[in-house]
């Protein structure tokens, strides 16, 4: 099937009806390979994470299979000093910035403290944000601060189509445009918010056109095309650093997988449609493209895929070698200035009783905030008094 909406900004064709466009300036063969490497690593992480969840080794997981282009493409366009703000959907983005994959897996495994969290300043990667759209004002604030500091550093935030309905999206877009700060709003329009389709989310046909309400440029790109995602993000970041203000990017794609590991899309959508979109998934498409270009051959690709598998194998064993955090993790770092007396008493109360057995993920049955309520721990059915 040809890529949807021929109008979309796109580099990679389908090797048939849709011709390839030239590789964007600024991307050499090395870059193409590196970007492919990133995409493969993200893909491998996602597959591994789903497997781990099925095996009950991590909890609910929000998979992103098919959205690698929107993540690797955008991040590859960033300077190392630029700050990025992921939502739960870009949960593994940190591993491309030096966050150990084991740390991300541990977060999904229910570990906090030093095991599940990382230092954002070390990686210029904000913590994974769960409440929809609420991280957008933070990205604006960072960009505002870099502007005040004359640092020529930009920020970028990822969010979904559903997120555009939240007030925080609007307030962040408005602040960014009024203050003309160097930030990029990268909206991954996968056309679904859990079970809610795009047309129940907004009256506009596209998301990019919403930029007009903020006198901000809005661009629409094929969200399954890593090179196109790179190109629009690169241009937006250059504008931002040149002091020309923010940009809204709409990466148009489709949520090929379930919302989360416990979600069952058959409850609310026709999966035969999904199949049509699936052929556009970015990793296979980029591989084919690089083969056509002669930049990638089977041995090289195999090497890259093996490398990713090795990284993840190591990450999984690292994760499993991590002990459940001890009880103090409840109180640690809540206040950077130390323990208030209430914590001292709380910790003492904990020590006064036998520690409950470590909580394990619920396994195949568990769920995220996705549909399905299987995340309720199976309990002996008892008469209630």
């Amino acid at each position, binding site marked *: 099937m040809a890529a949807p909406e021929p109008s979309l900004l796109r580099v990679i064709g389908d090797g048939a009806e849709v011709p390839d466009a030239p590789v964007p300036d600024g991307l050499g063969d090395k870059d193409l390979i590196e970007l492919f490497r990133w995409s493969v690593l993200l893909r491998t992480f996602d597959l591994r994470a789903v497997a781990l969840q099925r095996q009950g080794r991590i*909890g*609910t997981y929000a998979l992103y299979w098919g959205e690698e282009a929107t993540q690797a493409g955008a991040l590859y366009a960033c300077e190392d000093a630029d700050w990025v703000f992921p939502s*739960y959907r870009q949960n593994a983005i940190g591993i491309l910035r030096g966050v150990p994959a084991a740390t991300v897996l541990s*977060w*999904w495994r*229910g*570990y*906090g403290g030093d095991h599940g969290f990382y230092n954002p300043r070390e990686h210029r990667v904000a913590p*994974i944000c*769960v*409440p*929809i759209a609420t991280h957008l004002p933070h990205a604006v604030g960072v960009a505002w601060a870099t502007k005040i500091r004359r640092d020529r550093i930009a920020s970028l935030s990822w969010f979904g189509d*559903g997120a555009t*309905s*939240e*007030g925080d999206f609007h307030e962040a877009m408005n602040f960014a445009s009024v203050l003309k700060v160097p930030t990029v709003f990268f909206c991954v329009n996968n056309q679904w*918010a*859990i*079970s*809610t389709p795009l047309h*129940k989310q907004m009256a506009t046909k596209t998301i990019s056109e919403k930029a007009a309400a903020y006198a901000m440029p809005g661009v629409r790109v094929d969200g399954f095309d890593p090179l196109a995602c790179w190109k629009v993000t690169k241009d937006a970041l250059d504008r931002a650093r040149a002091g020309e203000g923010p940009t809204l990017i709409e990466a148009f794609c489709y949520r090929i997988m379930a919302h989360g590991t416990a979600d069952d899309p058959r*409850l*609310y959508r026709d999966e035969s449609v999904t199949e049509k979109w699936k052929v556009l998934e970015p990793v296979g498409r980029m591989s084919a493209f690089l083969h056509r270009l002669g930049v990638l051959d089977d041995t090289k690709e195999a090497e890259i895929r093996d490398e990713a598998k090795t990284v993840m194998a190591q990450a999984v064993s690292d994760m499993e070698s991590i002990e459940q*955090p001890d*009880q103090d*993790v*409840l*109180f640690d770092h*809540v206040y950077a200035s130390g323990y*208030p007396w*209430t*914590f001292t008493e*709380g910790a003492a*109360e*904990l020590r006064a*009783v*036998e*520690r*409950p*057995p*470590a*909580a*394990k993920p*619920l396994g195949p049955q*568990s*769920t*995220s*905030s*996705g*549909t399905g*309520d299987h*995340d*309720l*721990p199976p*309990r002996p*059915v*008892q*008469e*209630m*008094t």
Partner: protein
Amino acid sequence: MSELTMVEGLNLGLRQAMAEDDRVVVLGEDVAQTGGVFRVTAGLLTQFGEERVVDTPLAEAGIVGAAIGMAVYGLLPVVEIQFDVFVYPGFEQIVVHAARYAWRTKGEVPASIVVRIPFGGGVRAPELHSDSPEALFAHVPGLKVVCPTTPRDARDMMLAAILDPDPVIFMEPKRIYRAGRQEVSEELPFSLGNSHKERERLLSTARVARKGNDLAMITYGPTVPLCLQAAERLAEERSIESTVIDLRSLYPLDVDAIVESASRCGRALVVHEAPRMSGIGAEVSSLIHERAMLKLEAPVMRVTGFDVPFPQFANEDDYLPSVDRILLGARKVLDF
């Protein structure tokens, strides 16, 4: 008569209210097509159609605010908040508008909405899916805040909340959603037309979940079953007989049941999952001391969540009040 879980009880309450009164509408994120992430609204779309059961855009202030407007026009909206923490974007609409509409309109136009909030931890959910914000609402005048703990109460209180003219924050303990089954008759608990008395009773009185004269355990929501277990242990191990009060209504509190049980037993323990600082437990403890200190043989103690962000789930059992911690608190009160 059939054996229902709490989720099924809530669903039955909603269905009966919608069938009885066509002013009742249900709105929220993913409530229609899929019946909500916890399936509480399952089947309503098919039975009542897409005008009365609506999947809204993803915006809590918009959802609550629109529901208030619908109520102003005369409908009876029931809003679902997907998870506890996600109520905060709609907080302003609840505390500034829903809570004050009746007051601001001479009582003529109360914001007759129900805001359903699945809350609490213990379900191994990811970050920010396990909060217990009930005290924030109980502190805001103009709201009623309730929390059923049994399938039967879930059905009855849902009907009462929907038909009550005032805004009701309806806290649903996730952990209990399917924890057990209970007989719930299809029969309505009160004639929906009038009978304010029974409706009022369901929204303002506590339930005695266990009777005893040695210790009063006062609690609500997810910690009710734990207090019952602790009570059994005390009975076996120390032949201490405990009264367990399931508050059900967090605002207004059933001060009579609270003070009566504490005075009768002379010893009381308050238990909840939410953080301690200025929580529901602080109010219950204060009420008892203010009214019955001379009848007490020990100060009222509290077993609660700690004053920390709800932890990542691998450590949630360290955070949640356990039967052991309840027994520890009980001992403090008993051996004072």
